[in-house]
């Protein structure tokens, strides 16, 4: 089989070479003088290219708009999308005008031996105009862009819901502060082990009711502050529908605040897709499984969110062995916060003794 394909390829190349050779010999034989036909053909082809290219671009962009326009589900996302489409309008107009002008010129000013090009070396008015116009347009884009950027990156409000996203090869985990203190406990990468994947520092009382989640639950209409960390290499939190992206950097906590505006259910209605799900992806190359770091995201109404929060088991409750790292004076508080029986340690010990 391979032999036949190889032979075929050799044959095709051989035939092409023959055609080339014959073409060259004919050129030599014809001794052609000043032949302008190829120049005209190229000029016409450039014009056709411009017309078909622009035509296809407009046709495809309008016809398939919905397949690349991701529905937006966050407050700031509306603003950035707005800026995106303003930029799009400006660039498409500029692009179209220049594209048409350029290929129109190459067509009508194609070589003609009876004509001479204009000696037109500069014109300060023209140059000032087309320096000034882009400058003004850019100034508008910059001002608008910086305002939106300032809003997005400004400090989060005090009552924002804090959630921690931790990236590692090749999975995400979310850590929520428990409902009892609503604050994330300290962590330290040196405390990480097979069970303590967050490196929770159990000498900090805020860590007792923290819980782990393998789904990112978000409350609709409430500001959420993602605290983002990475354990091993750089990852990047990407929530396409919320227009959220922020790198997860080992050794440096990053953050991104945003307000979801549509629940998963609402999005299912809007998109007409009953199976719609929000998703989180990784957008910083992190190794072999980079493409597989999917993390499910669910947006619910605030009261439902509170219910969900309250129903979660704290990490410490799931890993009662770690009570041994809690300082003695905090053991009772830890047990209460984690939802363990007060003398939980003995209870667990006896269980493990069996």
């Amino acid at each position, binding site marked *: 089989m391979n032999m036949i394909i190889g032979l075929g390829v050799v044959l095709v190349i051989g035939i092409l070479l023959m055609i080339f050779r014959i073409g060259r010999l004919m050129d030599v034989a014809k001794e052609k003088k000043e032949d302008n036909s190829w*120049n005209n053909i*190229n000029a016409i082809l450039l014009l056709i290219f411009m017309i078909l290219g622009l035509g296809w671009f407009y046709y495809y962009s309008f016809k398939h708009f919905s*397949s*690349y*326009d*991701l529905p937006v589900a966050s407050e700031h996302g509306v603003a950035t*999308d707005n800026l*995106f489409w303003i*930029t*799009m309008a400006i660039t498409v107009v500029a*692009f179209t005008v*220049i*594209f048409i002008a*350029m290929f129109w*010129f190459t067509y009508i*000013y194609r*070589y*003609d031996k009876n*004509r*001479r*090009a*204009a*000696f*037109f*070396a500069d014109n300060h008015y*023209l*140059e000032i105009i*087309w*320096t000034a116009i882009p*400058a003004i347009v*850019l100034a508008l884009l910059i001002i608008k*862009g*910086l305002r*939106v950027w*300032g809003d*997005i990156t400004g400090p989060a409000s005090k009552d924002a819901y804090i959630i921690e996203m931790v990236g590692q090869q090749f999975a995400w985990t979310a850590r929520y502060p428990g409902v009892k203190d609503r604050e994330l406990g300290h962590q330290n*990468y*040196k405390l990480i082990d097979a069970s303590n994947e967050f*490196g929770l520092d159990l000498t900090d009382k805020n860590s007792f009711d923290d819980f782990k989640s393998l789904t990112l639950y978000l409350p609709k209409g409430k500001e959420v502050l993602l605290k983002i960390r990475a*354990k*091993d*290499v*750089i990852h*990047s939190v*990407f929530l*396409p529908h919320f227009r959220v*992206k*922020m*790198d997860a*950097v*080992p*050794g*440096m906590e990053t*953050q991104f605040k945003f307000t979801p505006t549509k629940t998963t259910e609402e999005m299912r209605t809007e998109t007409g897709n009953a*199976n*719609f799900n929000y998703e989180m*992806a990784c*957008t910083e*190359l992190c*190794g072999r499984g980079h493409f597989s770091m999917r993390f499910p995201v669910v947006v619910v109404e605030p009261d439902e969110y509170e219910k969900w929060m309250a129903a979660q088991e704290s990490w410490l409750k799931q890993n009662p062995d770690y009570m041994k790292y809690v300082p003695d004076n905090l053991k009772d508080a830890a047990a209460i916060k984690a939802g363990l029986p007060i003398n939980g340690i003995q209870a667990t010990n006896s269980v493990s003794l069996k």
Partner: protein
Amino acid sequence: MENHSHEDHGHEHHGNFWTTYIFSEDHKVIAKQFLITGMAWALIGGLLSVLFRLQLGFPDANLSWLKPLLGGWLTADGKIDPEFYLALVTMHGTIMVFFVLTAGLSGTFSNFLIPLQIGARDMASGFMNMLSYWFFFLSSSIMFTSLFLSTGPAGGGWTIYPPLSALPQAISGSGLGMTLWLVSMAFFIVSSLLGSINYITTVINLRTVGMSFTKLPLTIWAFFFTAIIGVLSFPVLFAAVLLLIFDRGFGTSFYLSDIYIGGEALPNQGGSPILFQHLFWFLGHPEVYIVILPSLGITSEIISTNSRKPIFGYKAMVGSLLFIAILSFVVWAHHMFVTGMNPFLGSIFTLLTLIIAIPSAVKIFNYVTTMWRGNIRFTPAMLFSIGMVSYFLTGGITGLFVGNSAVDIQLHDTYFIVAHFHLVMGVAAFFGMFAGVYHWFPKMFGRMMNEKLGYIHFWLTFIGGYLIFFPMHYIGIAGFPRRYYTWTNFETFSGFTDLNLLVSIAAIVTFFTQFIFVFNFIYSIFRGKLAPANPWESNALEWTTPRFPGHGNWPGEIPTVYRWPYDYSKPGAKEDFIPQHIPYSETPESNLPHENELIKLEGMDATIHVEEKKHH
């Protein structure tokens, strides 16, 4: 100015095969060495991209027929291994950016054209120039070797962000492959610096009589600024590379902190991966201008020549090159808007980045106006130059999206970015390179390339390039992340299999189209029509040399320059071009009033020239 007055008798340095073709100090031979090495690299880099496009366009295909080539890098069911996929992406980027579009482009055309167009016998230091190529060759050999390692070549992306690139346990490509990458890059930087210092010195010191800075062709201006950018930015990459080598080998913590990997907490603390990104992009961003400026210079020259019209706004063209060169140093952090860098820095870099659009727009307007009311000859070089402007426009204009930090949040690291930079610095720079080869081939090899093959090559590549990269905008707006082996894990990114298929087919066809060029190139070196003295009726100085210029370029004296290089279609002139070495006194019919004044000075130039000769 001493160079052009000494030894007026034969400049041919007849040496043996080794000193003439291998360890040559002749800038023209070195240029060809860079060109041919660059072409070889381009084919390798292109082949790698075809391999990963097979995975992206035909995710279900059984590629076991590639076993002879890829061996163990195919999985049992005939798929490309995900880690090898990343290595392909990484090496494609590294090869194309550095080995093809930096060394292959600047190395070829700066070397070839600077002495010929400014009227010099050779580079300021022929020996350094030779070293520059051989360091590049050494660097190339090391990088090439890394392709054959059992653990694979570097796989952390061409930007080699640590910790991924610092930790062999994070990805197998960060083992020996990464070491070789870093060593190769260190030699590459040495090569680039030796070249750039030489280009700068030559342009400043070795211009012929009359060749003032304001009479330089735009090609030379572009190469000059490119070399300055290179000299200022490559050392920073060298520092970044060196610190990474320390982190990898000697237990330092420049870029590493708080890492738990492979069941073990590493001792490194206090470093910052962001530091690396700042250092990397301090080169990395100027680097894209190192890639594109030579193409802008080459196309300025070619478009003016083939429009038979002076380049519109010569001063604005030089000014915008200078402005771009300066701005290129203060925009690097726009690659880092979402890295957790201080948002205030994001604002500053948005402002500075979008300003670059102004000189870029001026350049495009000036190109278009140059063609307006021209008398355009569509040589293959001209077609590729028009294509270059088209791509520079298409890719450059999307910079307004990604340069704006708020919009970049969504687009960062998606296929929109891939489309943007491939169009504006990848394909555009490639087109500049093709244009340059077609245009100066007669000067390089004394023979003409076949025009019809050139047309076919242009049309297939021009359309192919758009088919490859334009659809990526849609995929990117839809959020598809780059460097993904497959998108099937995500519902959000499950569409657009049709566009990905189209892109892959276009990539494969366009890749094989390049063999038309390779064939034309090799065939024409030996069998092409002999070139006339000035095949494009160009004004620049290189066409005053003999068909096969020897070492020293001009057999007699170097011509004196009297005018700028863009006196095309001057009213009153007999021909539609007046080369730079024609004095105004010989063209009274076409002189502008202020040029008649200059006739008086022409004699003085000659006197100075004679007096200088006496001193030697």
